[in-house]
């Protein structure tokens, strides 16, 4: 190998190592700014096509769904009356005993303009950035159809007019959670698959399939009580010290158009 080529190869290796180790990408924000009109056009067309396919091509089951929904409405009306009474009671108790602290954070609604395709990471890009007050580590929420609001992910990179978000299913995502029914704590971690892992669940825990999992608030990143998902499977950990499980995220994270950024920064400097 000639001296010139060896220098080029060494330079490439150094740049490659540097690009992996570097914490900041100086040109990324500007390139994202240039690309954002294309991403917006992609998202508008993509969502239009998706809605078209969902509305017109999948109409076969609508009649049956309609009948089931009517039955469901009747039973829900009965439930509603019961829960209204309970809510009134709860509000009275809350005022008297202050059993829950309602901490409200400001929220920003953002549109998803780009979804990354990578089998080993799960990221997306939203159209809000530092000029809208977004900061790294802020939680991302979304509406689960007919169920409520659930956790979607976390902001990892913020640029002027766009931000990168890692989803709940990304390998580097982790959140401290508790099982709503038993109040047992655990850690939810993504693994680049549709289901996420629930780890460090105590051996004595009575959690079972179908139990809801919410954030515990103990990690100081996410406020407590955010819906994360539903337990699909519970197994004994191979290490024998804990139980582990699989969780189906509450929000259909692959079919989202809008998300809500909770303007909450970590409670302590991490």
């Amino acid at each position, binding site marked *: 190998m000639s001296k010139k080529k060896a220098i*080029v190869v060494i330079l*490439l290796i150094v740049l490659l190592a540097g*690009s992996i180790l570097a914490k900041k990408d100086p040109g990324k924000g500007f390139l994202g700014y240039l690309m954002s009109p294309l991403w917006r056009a992609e998202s508008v067309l*993509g969502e239009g096509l998706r809605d078209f396919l969902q509305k017109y091509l999948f109409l076969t089951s609508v009649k049956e769904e309609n009948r089931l929904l009517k039955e469901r409405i009747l039973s829900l009306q009965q439930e509603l009356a019961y829960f209204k009474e309970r809510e009134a009671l709860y509000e009275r108790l809350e005022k008297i005993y202050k059993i829950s602290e309602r901490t409200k954070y400001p929220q920003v609604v953002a549109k998803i303009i780009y979804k*990354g395709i990578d*089998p080993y*990471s799960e990221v997306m890009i939203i159209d809000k950035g530092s000029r809208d007050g977004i900061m790294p580590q802020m939680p991302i929420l979304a509406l689960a159809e007919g169920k409520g609001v659930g956790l979607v992910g976390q902001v990892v990179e913020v640029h002027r007019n766009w931000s990168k978000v890692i989803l709940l299913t990304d390998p580097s995502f982790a959140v401290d959670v508790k099982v709503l029914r038993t109040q047992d704590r655990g850690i939810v971690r993504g693994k680049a698959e549709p289901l996420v892992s629930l780890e460090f669940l105590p051996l004595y825990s009575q959690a079972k399939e179908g139990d809801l999992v919410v954030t515990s608030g103990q990690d100081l990143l996410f406020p407590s009580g955010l819906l994360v998902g539903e337990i699909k499977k519970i197994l004994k*950990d191979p*290490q024998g010290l804990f139980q582990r499980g699989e969780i189906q995220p509450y929000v259909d994270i692959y079919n989202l158009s809008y998300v809500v950024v909770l303007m909450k920064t970590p409670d302590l400097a991490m």
Partner: protein
Amino acid sequence: MSFSEFLFRFLPFFLTITFVKGVINFILPIWFIDIYLALALASIIQFKFNFFSIIALFFIGIMRSFDGYYPLLFFSLLYIFLFWLKEVGKKFLKQENIYFPYLFCLISIFIVLFFQLFIYFFRLNLYSITYNFLFWVFMKSLFWLAMTFLFTCLFLKTLRFIIDDHKDK
């Protein structure tokens, strides 16, 4: 690749692929294909080692870095490294051999897969990794490899059509 080929042939094709990929992504959110790697490998095979080919790979790599949680220049440098590897490989393998491009593609996809899996397991923080999980990752990678290879062949044919067929006229 000449400047006119880069500007009037490659760039419109690249932007079209990027746009179509972005649109389909909203309809089918999970793909086990790396479109950009396929396009980069097809370009490496199709084009000669010069400034504009490197710029083309640079663009592809930058777009790829937005798809995952990677540094901006990571894929650009990796693709340029693969381009250099092809130039070196030509000396050791007879290029007249029709299998050379396919063999090169397979080796390159394995190299990129190795890097991606390395980063994946580095970022993965699972306390206990089961055989089921490893088997699923293996199957996913195998499928990704096969699909990327197929798309590389497809892009190679398309690029040949776009560049060479028009050149003759």
